[in-house]
């Protein structure tokens, strides 16, 4: 793919979907858009780009955006973890931590921020009592500094705010501006952002009551998955939760966890953290 075509598609996707392609994603464009070109009877991506330039019909733009945004992160993705948070996890943790009155949640691959922000919204709606006298910390990490910077701004395109977010939540939590839609400061300020490579030491991340690690381990080999999961187990407090993506499991990968009862999401408790040697950071 020539650099001009790459630039055109990058800008097209940014303006039409908010998808930040970054550099060196030619393989992604080719793997996703070649089937689209073929299905439209075009010779390849080059001709698809020409069609987008000459006759950018709503249908064509939609088809290209959809092909590129499949599996992108969205607000309240899968919904079950958020239902579990409200129904079981947070009430349990509030009871267990009623003396120290702290709750710590880690989103381990927060990407463009929809997951940590969804957690913040869910906590506000389901547990308004947390706003007085509780110290709630939501830590969001990602390997990509540019993505983190975007997430931190809480700025989303029209396409992004329509994925998984009800109109009532849009009205309640967002302001419209010239770039699209931005989360109100009171939600943005509830998240702490850190750049972190899951392959490296978690160092001073401390202890968490819940770790969200959804749809990221699929990119690693079984050995690396095990290594990450085993290290994460040491950072989850007693009776805390690890939440994986709906199609993910720890079965046959790590024996550091057991399935959490009563949850509809793929949620697990660590066996024990007593000998972890991880310093509590509350």
């Amino acid at each position: 793919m020539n650099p001009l075509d790459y630039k055109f598609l990058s800008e097209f996707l940014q303006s039409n979907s908010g998808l930040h392609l970054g550099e060196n994603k030619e393989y992604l464009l080719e793997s996703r858009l070649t089937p689209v070109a073929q299905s439209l009877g075009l010779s390849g991506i080059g001709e698809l780009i020409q069609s987008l330039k000459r006759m950018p019909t709503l249908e064509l733009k939609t088809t290209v955006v959809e092909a590129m945004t499949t599996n992108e992160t969205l607000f309240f993705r899968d919904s079950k973890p958020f239902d579990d948070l409200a129904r079981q996890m947070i009430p349990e943790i509030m009871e267990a931590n009623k003396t120290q009155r702290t709750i710590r949640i880690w989103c381990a691959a927060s990407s463009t921020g929809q997951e940590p922000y969804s957690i913040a919204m869910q906590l506000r709606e389901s547990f308004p009592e947390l706003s007085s006298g509780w110290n709630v910390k939501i830590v969001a990490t990602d390997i990509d500094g540019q993505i983190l910077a975007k997430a931190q701004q809480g700025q989303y395109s029209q396409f992004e705010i329509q994925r998984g977010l009800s109109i009532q939540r849009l009205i309640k939590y967002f302001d419209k501006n010239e770039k699209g839609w931005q989360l109100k400061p009171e939600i943005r300020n509830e998240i702490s952002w850190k750049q972190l490579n899951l392959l490296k030491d978690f160092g001073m991340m401390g202890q968490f009551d819940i770790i969200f690690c959804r749809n990221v381990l699929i990119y690693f080999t079984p050995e690396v998955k095990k290594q990450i999961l085993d290290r994460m187990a040491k950072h989850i407090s007693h009776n805390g939760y690890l939440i994986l993506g709906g199609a993910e499991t720890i079965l046959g990968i790590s024996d550091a966890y057991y399935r959490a009862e009563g949850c509809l999401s793929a949620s697990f408790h660590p066996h024990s953290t007593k000998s972890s040697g991880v310093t509590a950071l509350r």
Partner: protein
Amino acid sequence: MVKILLVDDSRTVRLVGRRMMEKMGFEVLEAEHGEDALVVIGKHPDVTAILLDWNMPVMNGLDFLKALRALPLPKQPSVVMCTTENDMGHIMEAMDAGANEYIMKPFTEDIVRDKLEVVGIL
């Protein structure tokens, strides 16, 4: 089969929307404007949801929505506005008039699916 009414003066939008929603397993009815949609509702009072454009000739989406909400139907359908109007003022006006959800054009199949899930149709 669950019936969805698609109200839009653009033939292309109706074509794209019909294709998406038939794929989701719905029976799709069409209307070109609000007045046309009231006739369809008269014939099919069991419509479960309506995807409704705002700016249309003869009767616009907002006027149709107000007329619909005043009808003595056995069960009021869920209404998802589907429009290029994308400012907070229009959104609030539609919600005040009785819309259940709001899609800002251009839309994708994922967005339509998400919104139909939010209103409990999917």
